[in-house]
């Protein structure tokens, strides 16, 4: 670049347990270009200034869901956040809230990975059909019933945005419930009863107080908050129905 470049200050959360027991902020003065994202600035730091900086990223186009971080206090995908929108800076970059930090900006997402299979996010059939029975067709309306919830990329921004998850880590959480709904609302699925055990038990949907922040930060408009509230309606009607039918406990 021939002309003088603009620079922006990054205040980056550093946690290096092998050298320092407590995290600290490190400041980098980064030259940036007009169309740079926050992730580009981090890559610049890693390539040109300090190769020891640790963070996750992959696709740079909002699909893989790995580059979620807290930028100026908001959980965002750093590959989809323009530096221009955060000027004049400094831009503070922290790891996602609610997850234990392994190093720098890398959190441990193992808790979510353990919770996800508990809601059985796969199609459950009462009985498997033979292959030669052909495809199970769905109308556009039937696909429309769950399509929104299938857009989740597991980026964990909704967990980072959720104060309940942060304080009550046993809460099964927004994305897991939205994914459960993705299958509950699928016309090919018969597993709603199996999922209900996890969802309407302690630390299922009832921990949620509809802060709504998960839906605000979701980069894919999944609306997990809406999914949870709708599930509360379903679970409540189910419970009242079970009162009317003796023999089945709620």
């Amino acid at each position, binding site marked *: 670049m021939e002309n003088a470049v603009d620079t922006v200050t990054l205040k980056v959360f550093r946690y290096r347990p092998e050298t320092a027991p407590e995290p600290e902020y490190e400041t980098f003065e980064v030259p940036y270009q007009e169309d740079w994202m926050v992730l580009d600035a981090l890559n610049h730091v890693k390539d040109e200034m300090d190769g020891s900086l640790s963070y996750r990223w992959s696709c740079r186009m909002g699909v893989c869901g790995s580059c979620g971080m807290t930028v100026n206090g908001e959980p965002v995908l750093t590959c989809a956040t323009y530096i221009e929108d955060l000027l004049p800076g400094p831009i503070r970059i922290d790891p996602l809230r609610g997850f234990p930090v392994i190093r720098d900006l890398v959190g441990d997402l193992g808790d979510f990975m353990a919770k996800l299979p508990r809601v059985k996010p796969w199609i459950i059939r009462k009985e498997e059909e033979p292959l030669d029975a052909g495809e199970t067709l769905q109308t556009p309306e039937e696909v429309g019933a769950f399509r929104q919830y299938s857009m989740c990329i597991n980026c964990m921004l909704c967990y980072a945005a959720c*104060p309940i998850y942060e304080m009550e880590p046993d809460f099964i959480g927004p994305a897991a419930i939205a994914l459960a709904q993705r299958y509950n609302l699928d016309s090919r699925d018969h597993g709603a009863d199996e999922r209900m055990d996890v969802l309407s038990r302690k630390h299922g949907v009832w921990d949620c107080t509809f802060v709504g922040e998960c839906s605000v930060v979701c980069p894919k408009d999944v609306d997990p908050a809406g999914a949870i509230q709708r599930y*509360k309606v379903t679970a409540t009607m*189910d419970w009242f129905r079970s009162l009317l039918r003796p023999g089945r406990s*709620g």
Partner: protein
Amino acid sequence: MALKPPREPLVWALFSAGGMVAALVLPALAGILWIAAPLGLLGPLDHEGLRLLAVHPVVRIGMGLLLPLFFFHWAHRFRHTLHDGLQLYHLSRFIALVTYGVALGLSLGALWILWSLG
């Protein structure tokens, strides 16, 4: 402990129903009864007309339905406000018992008062 907080679907249903009716009727009631009327914006008050309205069976039955819903709406929401807002996770069960207990007591009191009116 013998006492157990009520089932979540039940209290959530009461909370939701209470929140909905509170949203729909309370601003109008509060605005007229406790702001416009005392300020004299509606002219002189007719005590007997208002009393007949208040003791009318429809109003009494309506109040008997609405007031408990309002109380349980408060109980459920305030329980979570205390519990999450102040991070009192160790008092979880105690808070639930107290808030729903207060709502139950107030509801029974309200029903008794409505029954003995007139």
